[in-house]
């Protein structure tokens, strides 16, 4: 399964009586009904760790691009109408700012490692607190309550898995808790954010900007308000889209499929 296609539903499973395994590209499996697949005796695998570094890099790329107004700046630099670069055209400083990471799994932790090198102050919220040594290594402070993180962060980065608990984790209430100077970065799943609330928050300057590698749906309808906002950067779910990583992903998927077909233990099986 690549980019959620084909859609795995009851109809499809019934039409494929000899299906033994579904290998999904990437780490997220929110698009798969695991109970349904299990009831048909079909095994599932994903490619969890290989995507982490590139996705963390994407999170930082979006954070920096948004803070420093890179996309806007490029447009100004190449626009036929530009006569000079205004001296009062400013972005927001990244070094020394506060980053709040929601979801401190493998990807979230890699983001923290990178952010530390930018002398950023790191807060994180997670289902469980990380070990003291892991926290110290990146200088991350645990926020048991998400509200504390939202109120103090200059940048809020979403790196959670999509589950019923994280569905619309960031809604109107959460956006209002954020600083009006804050930026929301989403590298998890579109559904983690209440998109309509986000549009309103951006239009009314409740928060400053957003940078999204994921939306719901993907891609957004062409008349969607998010596409028109100046303070939004959108990328087409390219978190893991590098040649090297995609190569390894396909290798891993092939490996899992071969094991599944041979009745052997499946590497990266999702249970």
């Amino acid at each position, binding site marked *: 399964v690549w*980019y959620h296609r084909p859609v795995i539903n009851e109809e499809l499973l019934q039409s494929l009586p000899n299906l033994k395994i579904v290998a999904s590209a990437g780490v997220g499996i929110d698009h798969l009904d695991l109970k349904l697949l299990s009831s048909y005796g079909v095994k599932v695998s994903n490619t969890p760790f290989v995507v982490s*570094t*590139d996705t963390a*890099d*994407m999170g*930082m*790329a*979006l954070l*920096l*691009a948004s*803070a*420093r*107004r*890179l*996309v806007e*700046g*490029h447009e*100004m*630099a*190449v626009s*036929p109408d*530009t*006569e*000079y*670069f205004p*001296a009062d*055209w*400013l*972005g*927001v*400083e*990244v*070094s*020394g700012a506060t980053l709040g990471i929601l979801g401190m799994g493998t990807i979230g932790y890699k983001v923290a*490692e*990178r952010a*530390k*090198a*930018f*002398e950023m102050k790191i807060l994180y919220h997670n289902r469980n607190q990380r070990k003291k040594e892991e926290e110290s290594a990146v200088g991350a402070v645990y926020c048991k309550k998400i509200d504390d993180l939202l109120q103090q962060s200059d940048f809020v980065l979403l790196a959670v898995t999509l589950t019923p608990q994280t569905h619309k984790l960031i809604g109107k209430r959460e956006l209002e808790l954020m600083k009006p100077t804050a930026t929301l970065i989403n590298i998890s799943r579109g559904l983690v954010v209440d998109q309509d609330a986000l549009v309103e928050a951006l239009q009314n300057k409740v928060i400053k900007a957003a940078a999204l590698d994921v939306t719901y749906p993907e*891609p*957004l309808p*062409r008349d969607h308000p998010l*596409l*028109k906002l100046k303070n939004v*950067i*959108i*990328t*087409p779910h*390219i978190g893991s*889209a*590098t*040649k*090297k*990583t*995609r190569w390894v992903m396909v290798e891993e998927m092939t490996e899992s499929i071969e094991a599944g077909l041979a009745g052997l233990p499946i590497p990266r099986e999702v249970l």
Partner: protein
Amino acid sequence: IGKKVQAIYLWWHKPVINKELLQSLPNLKVIANSGVGMDHLDLKLVASFGVKMANAPRAVSSSTADTGMALLLASARRLVEVHNISISPSMEYCEADILGVKVAGATLGIVGMGSIGYKIALRAKAFEMNILYHNRTQRKVQEEQAVGATYCKKIDSLLQQADFVMLVVSLTPQTHKLIGKRELKLMKPTATLINISRGAVVDQEALLAALQTGVIRAAALDVTSPEPLPRDHSLLKLKNIIITPHLGIKTDKATYMITEEAVENILAALNGLPLPSEVLPS
């Protein structure tokens, strides 16, 4: 009014400091620059009028290093290109076509390892990059080890091995057109050139040709010669280039800190005290 002026705070190269201006300001004691680069000032001329000069080195390094990393990541992951695809009225794109370059494990070659270059090395290390650097002088062993950087005495060696070449030198007669046709040819065809120093460090015509013919993969420039480029310049039309309007230090915090540094220098000069960041003609 000219007789009352004792200090000038130079903001983005304005006003232009020439002989005429200096002659019209007999009581001028100090010119404080908003930034670290002094290539736009005739240091000998200013000194000949007995006027002191100062720059703002401390405030710029982190912001400029951040800009360098922002450009490196944006170029590697084709951020500007794909943002435009994401918001375009047409939905035609093939996901398999928008692959970027993996940053982790790639080699970054830093040309110019001063304060800004070193801060870039600190950041790049966190991205698990291999770091090579070329500099007038080699850094101390502890400094090299702290960022895992390897010294390349010859720039050629750096150019041949780097996946990303980042220019962080001051503009001097020695670094003028440091990167020309020869240097671009030494680079890998898969490599990216990032310039956060000064436009004149690069031979722009040679860069244009290199990008058009695939001699290097891409470029990301925060600085050009001139700024802005003429609107019909061929560099503006390339797909594999990102150009930003000299963002280097354009943040709220950096602007504040630069102004603070300038004021410190101005007050010191007016009170006959040593300047915290005086720049002397070499």
